[in-house]
């Protein structure tokens, strides 16, 4: 069964595929440039000690972003 949710809701260790990305301007562009495009596979690694930001793995490297920004990314779990 395929289930869509936002990236920030992935459990630690969970893997998903990027579906779409809302938002605009520099921040959205930055996220796209870092390799978060439709079809990219992301794995939730961990949250920082204070609960934010998050660390995710995408395209074979580790990327950190804030929860509020991860909320703009829709993913599909397998």
């Amino acid at each position, binding site marked *: 069964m395929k289930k869509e949710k936002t990236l920030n809701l992935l459990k630690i260790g969970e893997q998903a595929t990027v579906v779409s990305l809302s938002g605009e301007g520099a921040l959205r562009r930055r996220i796209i440039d870092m*390799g978060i495009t439709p079809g990219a596979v992301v794995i939730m690694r961990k949250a920082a000690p204070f609960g934010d*930001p998050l660390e995710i793995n995408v395209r074979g490297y580790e990327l950190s*972003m804030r929860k509020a920004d991860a909320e703009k990314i829709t993913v599909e779990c397998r």
Partner: protein
Amino acid sequence: MANSTTTITSGQKDIHKSTEKKTIKIALGGNPNCGKTTLFNQLTGSNQYVGNWPGVTVEKKEGKARFQGREIIVSDLPGIYSLSPYTPEEIVTRHTLLHDNPDIIIDIVDATNLERNLYLTTQIQEIQRPVIIALNMIDLLEKRGDTIDCKVLEKRFGVPVVPISASKNTGIDTLMAKAIAIAEGGQQQPVQRLYSKKVERVIADIQEALFEVDGKEHLRFTAVKLFEGDSVTWENYKFNKQQQDHIEFHINEIETTQYIDREMIIADERYKFICATCERAVTKGHPQGYETMSDKADKVITNKYLALPLFLLMMFGVFFITFGPVGSYLKDGAEWLILDVLTPQVSSLLVSINASDWAFSLIIDGIIAGVGAVVSFLPQISILFLLLSILEDSGYMARAAFIMDKLLRMIGLSGRAFVPMLMGFGCTVPAVLGTRTLENEKDKRLTILITPFMSCSAKMPVYLLFISVFFNESSPLVIFSIYLLGILVAILTALIFSRTILKGKDAPFVLELPPYRMPSPKTLWLHVWERVKDFLVRAGTILMGAAVLIWFLQSFNFRLEQVSDSSQSILATIGIAIAPIFSLCGFGDWQSSVSLLTGIVAKESVVSTMTVLFGGDTSMISQVFTPLSAYSFMTFVLLYTPCVAALSAIGKEMGSRKWTAIAIVYQLAVAWVVSMLVFQIGSLFVG
């Protein structure tokens, strides 16, 4: 002589030709953490020049190298992920690649992070200048058991690919030989049509329209940017209505059929092209879920429970080494060299050549004492920069930002600001210079603005002087309250400024956490040397000027006669003139004002000046000050404008006169207001 081997035997014509061989301009481009700086250092050694790009505080690095008798100028472009027009680094790189016409671009690609690195490659090759790919960290890739077929990359991107290891210094000769051959061939980069047919058709249409309005330069690059809706590029082009409608119609068509917007279409197709390339080129030798040493280390270092204690331990370590026994031992050593070795040597020399009194005083009391006080910080600054460079190059700094981001965001800063702020307790100079690691201008300015409120170690002697006279019993509490007050003012300042003048979007915190790596000693050394050199240059120019000025004001009266008693000097006259300003703060005597003025050279000078002005007897202070006015004075010293060395660092990093002025005025105003409040409110209770 250049190229002697080829020219000696081959006659006059060739000799003539060899003198025509021009210097080759090489631009190094690549992602952050791809090993670009390591390669740059390998190529140029210490033969490099670091400056700023005009108008921005992005570092501009250029160096000279010789290869096979060829003169080469290498410029190290800022590390970027994309040629978007948003960050200053991206703008600078884009401008250089498009308009400085490098003879060849070396695109450094981290082999262990191929997909994202090649994303920049797809953009660089659209510029259609000669490009060569340096596939770096090939040694680390092999260690993992992976292989990359360079032939596939060459074919797909249409550019030569040379595997290298910048840190192990392998493959670099081959890379340079090929790069130079291409640069001299001067052929245009062939167009690689990596997008889908539909997109390529629209790009071709845009190129055609561009050709009519703008000529031939960078057609493809510009066309792709226009397709994406790149606002900066659109500003530069005016198409007629018909062209505009035509382009818009076709882009819209693709957008609606694919359900994604134009910006994403381009990025998506680039990544698709890259994925297809990697599928063919990369053979993975490691099993699924394989963990590198770095992955294992990170499980501990950013562990939910261990991260914070480890971070604090690390910061304490840096602080302890720099300002604890090691650093202060070296600082004492430097002071000893200046005061007990250099000063007597120079003074006996001056006596032996019968130097006049004023010349003697200028050199000994002015230059050596003034510049010496600042130069004695050099060992600590070097240690701090060495440690910070190790943290940065090893990949830890990104984790520190990751750990601290949430706390700092509450006051409008990003995680990266923490380390420089902490360093401010040691010395404001390296702390302010350390803000260079902040990406966002707003963050950087705010951090520079509040760092001086972290009570620097040079202010300690001032506190100690007053505590010994007034607060002996409660000294730890008094000192603690002063430090705390500084932090409170810093937090309030950050809150106020981040909601008013420095309001703006929060810096995007989309940060790569690079793999942990062993920093290269050569790179570390060059980092530290760069700072030391910079510091010495400033010490020899601005700081020396300031020291001489203060010396002059302190040693002469308005009739330009040398005075033996500094209470007759210009400085004292100024002190008397400004003293009333501080009467509301409780220290309206001229000695305090003069001490504060000299404190601008170096904070310790407050103590030495006061000692001199009170005739060498510090217990006299109790006749001028009360405990309350002493505390108010300490408050003022804590908060007012930092020393000249720090001011020049602030000027340099702010990159703007306006902001430097704002910082100075703000700090003076805050110091006055807070110490006035301390004295006035305190008076209500003390009576």
